[in-house]
């Protein structure tokens, strides 16, 4: 379970000031969808959970453990960004392997896990392909496969499907739904499309004036 307890984040630069207050609970196996205008704080919320920003106050708990002081790589979360989810110069299986072993010296079990993850996302035939040759949808599938092998209990999706066409997007949403159920992941989906929330989210929140407002799904 992922819990945000009274997370306060204050932001200011030369032109704008913003205050955010995040309170949220996502149970294992559930998807919470977050929508909101540009600049409403959707990506800020993801950055705070994943460790790229530190909140001014509040607690982030995963399965009851406080993770707010951990660096990003040691947090029990996997993030899918909108773009740049793969290292272009590496092969598909190498990109997946980084989820379990960053030295890329893999054991037999690790190799098997990678093959299974690629099978799960339907890309086993592209195992040895250079990542830069993949389409946008295929790249996001590989990133999902990596999240499968990483086996972390929280999945954060920062508008990863916004650049995909409608058909591929539909496939990806259904793939995510399946993976979340299989692996019992607590998942946060940030999207600008309310329909995405309606399709796969258990709960839908709208970010307004720096805080979550519950919407019906």
């Amino acid at each position, binding site marked *: 379970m992922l819990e945000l307890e009274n997370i306060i*984040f*204050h*932001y*200011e*630069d*030369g032109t704008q*000031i913003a205050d955010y207050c995040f309170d949220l609970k996502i149970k294992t196996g559930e998807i919470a969808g977050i929508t909101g205008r540009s*600049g409403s*704080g*959707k*990506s*800020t919320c993801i*950055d705070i959970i*994943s*460790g*790229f*920003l*530190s909140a*001014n106050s509040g607690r982030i708990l995963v399965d009851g453990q406080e993770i707010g002081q951990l*660096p*990003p*790589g*040691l947090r029990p*979360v*996997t*993030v899918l*960004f909108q773009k*740049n*989810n793969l*290292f272009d*110069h*590496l*092969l598909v299986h190498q990109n997946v392997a*980084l*989820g379990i072993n*960053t*030295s*890329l010296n893999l054991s037999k079990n690790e190799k098997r896990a990678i093959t299974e993850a690629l099978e799960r996302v339907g890309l086993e035939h592209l195992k040895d392909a250079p990542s830069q040759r993949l389409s946008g949808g295929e790249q996001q599938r590989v990133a999902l496969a990596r999240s499968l092998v*990483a086996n972390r209990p929280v999945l954060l999706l920062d508008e990863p499907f916004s650049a995909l066409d409608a058909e591929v997007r539909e496939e990806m949403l259904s793939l995510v739904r399946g993976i979340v159920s299989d692996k019992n992941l607590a998942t946060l989906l940030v999207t600008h499309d309310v329909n995405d929330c309606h399709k796969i989210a258990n709960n839908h929140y709208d970010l307004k004036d720096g805080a979550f407002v519950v919407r019906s799904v």
Partner: protein
Amino acid sequence: MAGRSALGKRTAIIRPGLSIYPGLMVSVLLLLLVCAVFVAVITTGLEQNTALSFDGVGRLLAFTTAQATASTLSALLLGTLLAWSLNHRRHFKGRRILLALLSVSMVLPTVVTALGLITVLGRNGWVNQGHLWLFGQDSGLSIYGIGGILIAHTWLNAPFISRGLLHRLEGIPVERLKLAASLRLSPWQRFKIVEWPALSVATPGLVMTVFLLCFTSFSIVLILGGSPNFNTLEVAIFEAVKLEFDLTRAAMLALVQLGVCGFLVMLAASLPQRSSAIAPPSFFHMWPDPIAARAIQTTVIVFFSLILTAPLSAVVMDGLHGDIFKILQDRLFRQAFLTSLIIAGLSSVLTIACALAIAATRRNLGSNLRTRQSNLSWLVGWLISFMGTGYLAMPSIVLGLGFFVIFQNLPMDTDHLAPLVLILANVLMALPFALVVFFPAMQKSGQRYDKLAFSLNIRGLARWRLIDWPSLRSEIGFVSALSFCLSLGDLGVIALFGNRDFITLPWLLYQNLGSYRTADASVIALVLLVLVTSVFLLLPALVEKRHHAGT
């Protein structure tokens, strides 16, 4: 959110940690070194009553400035014309060869260029021989003097300007070209409205760099100057040390040189940083220009091809006519060859190591993800980036002089330290260029992959192996070739430290020229030409190939 730069209460969790220290240490060490040299020069320059009349310095400064201004203007005019022509003529046979020639000419040892120009334009050169054959009399053309200096500087720097501007022209977004075509702009209107804005962004920096290179030019003026009337500050420093052994005069001239170069570097740093839209080079086929414009483009390209290839061909032909086997078996040649390779190799490795460390520190200090932004981190980042270009203000002959003065005061035999000085001078000479190449690539790799790498906990050597090396390999290949070639061709520091036991190929070539052993000099020039061309064209390709073989 990701694009925000100023932070307020935004703080980074990822600490830069040890990653900033190598670059910081390298910067501080180099800074101390340069300061030591500066102090040595300034104390020597001011320790005795001045023996230098103001008129002497004024005349040297005036000529140095005048020749650098004229050379820069001439290189700018021809370089711009060539860049414009090449941009409009993107499909002709030999274009790639011409582009490769432009690159090679930028790194060719100046002493080889000078020799090639002498063969073409000298008293018994090709042009005079042709004139004699056609008209029965000598043309009176002489390569020695101000004319020769200007021609050589233009030959060396117009390609540099041309490559820089062509990169900008090829990066003009294709939509703008389409818009220009749909509005039926004439070539002149297109130049004024579409192309000039792209060129004007790069021109001030290129002009400043070329002016600095011409201002501190040594070998060309030494070989082609022909008379003390055409001495520049740099050559006057050399003559004061080697011929007159007047270190005070040399140091005072060096201070003037340092002052002017420092002013120019600061001026360049204070130029407003304008940006213009730049896209990856596109091979968008332009609409055909009017016949007059095409005629100008063809003439410029043919003219340049001839101008570029003539001195190189002269070096090759003269070299092949020389007694190659005799030279190759000569003990002195072998010694110079080996010394040159070792010095250039070590200089190249050290340049890459220093530049990578400095570029990484600069990137890490500027990254919101890694560093808690403070006035201190900003100051350190600024200092490091300033020092990157600051070394341009320290010409190698001044650096050499500084070490020469320091060694004079050491109570020990310092001959064995000469190679170290040469390597350090080469590193400082190549460092600004290496940083210009590495920093944008490293910053780009950071912006693209930092978040992903941090979220996957890829750090230390794994980060270097998996992310930085693949992202920077082509730049590393290019910089290693560039620094190797620049080091191989240096005639500045070796002119102060060279002797019978410590000799490099350019120094041996210069000595042969000085003692009228032109045939031997031609063979050495050919060896240098082949070596530089091979390294510059093959080394980057080899680095790429090795990487692909490894993946």
